[in-house]
């Protein structure tokens, strides 16, 4: 077999791998169903429900990212750049500014990793804290920040799938 033929076969193999991954992922998304009680039937596949005082008010979808600016910061310890979308901007986009007050507490959680963090709106709204969603290597959202309780790898919330806002 010539080297040219070997390369052609390898490229076909590569294309098959890519096609397989994206195809299975597309099937996964289309088959996704709400896994939490009380979810609406029109749950958009591949979205994150955003609840306000227990009621689902919006779904955070990949399309929402198009209208948001990205910001970044560098993790001191590792020199790694975290880049993504501010949680503040996501909440303002989905819930609007009038519903969010300084007394609101925002819980960002990952059911698969059994991790969550509670943040006040004051902390989230302060851009200096850089409370943002970075896209992880496998394409899920990871909450990171310069805040002390979210600034190292073990404290980050990987695979975020739930955002709860509680406002008194």
């Amino acid at each position, binding site marked *: 077999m010539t*080297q040219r033929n*070997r*390369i052609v*076969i*390898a*490229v076909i*193999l*590569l294309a098959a*791998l*890519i096609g397989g*991954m*994206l195809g299975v*992922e*597309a099937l*996964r*998304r289309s088959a*996704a169903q709400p896994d939490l009680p009380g979810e609406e039937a029109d749950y958009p*596949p*591949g*979205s*994150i429900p955003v609840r306000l005082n227990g009621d689902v008010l919006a779904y*955070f979808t*990949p399309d929402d*990212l198009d209208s948001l600016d990205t910001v*970044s910061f560098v993790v001191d310890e590792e*020199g790694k*750049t*975290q*880049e993504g979308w501010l949680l503040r901007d996501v909440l303002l986009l989905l819930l609007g500014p009038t519903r969010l007050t300084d007394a609101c507490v925002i819980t960002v959680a*990952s*059911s*698969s990793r059994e991790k969550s963090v509670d943040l006040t709106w004051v902390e989230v709204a302060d851009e200096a804290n850089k409370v943002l969603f970075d*896209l*992880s*290597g*496998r*394409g*899920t*959202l*990871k909450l990171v920040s310069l805040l002390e309780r979210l600034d190292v*790898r073990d404290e*980050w919330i*990987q*695979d*975020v*799938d739930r955002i709860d806002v509680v406002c008194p």
Partner: protein
Amino acid sequence: MKKRYFTTFELILLALFSALIVVAKIALRFPITLSGHSGIFWMAIVIVGAGIVPKPGATSLMGLTSGLIAAFLGMGDFGALNTFMSYTFVGVGTDIALWLLRDPEHLIGAPVAAAIGHLAKLLFKWVFGIVSGTPVGFVALGLAKAVVGYIVFGALGGLLGALTLRALRRAGFFTYLAEKR
């Protein structure tokens, strides 16, 4: 006495390349945030290792060893097993690709092999994510972006590796190695 598949000298070389992969991952920074960007260094080292120890299984062993080192150093976002297997898959994927493509110095073959090897890492992460219950949300957007990043940077790393191997050959490094062996 049965002859060993890898000589001690080759094992030492592979161990050094494995350590170099981890060091490169920690120390070298590429000022962009696309998924898989570290593959440009990573895959260059893997391809150079494959050229210097040209035996099937060499890159798998490199992946396994670098995975062990990285897991013990606590690298990666998703735990030691994920880190170990990710590194191992890079080696195994590159091995399979080089089994087909043969020549790690080929300027087209090496980037293709490196792209396959690097994509094998993403494939593992993705499958591991599904098995461990990763939410479906955002994955498709990120996956498409990540696939492009992994392939492009893996291929660039492969090209860099092939060019390095050619430079080493011109400099007489392989003649020197043959004498050492």
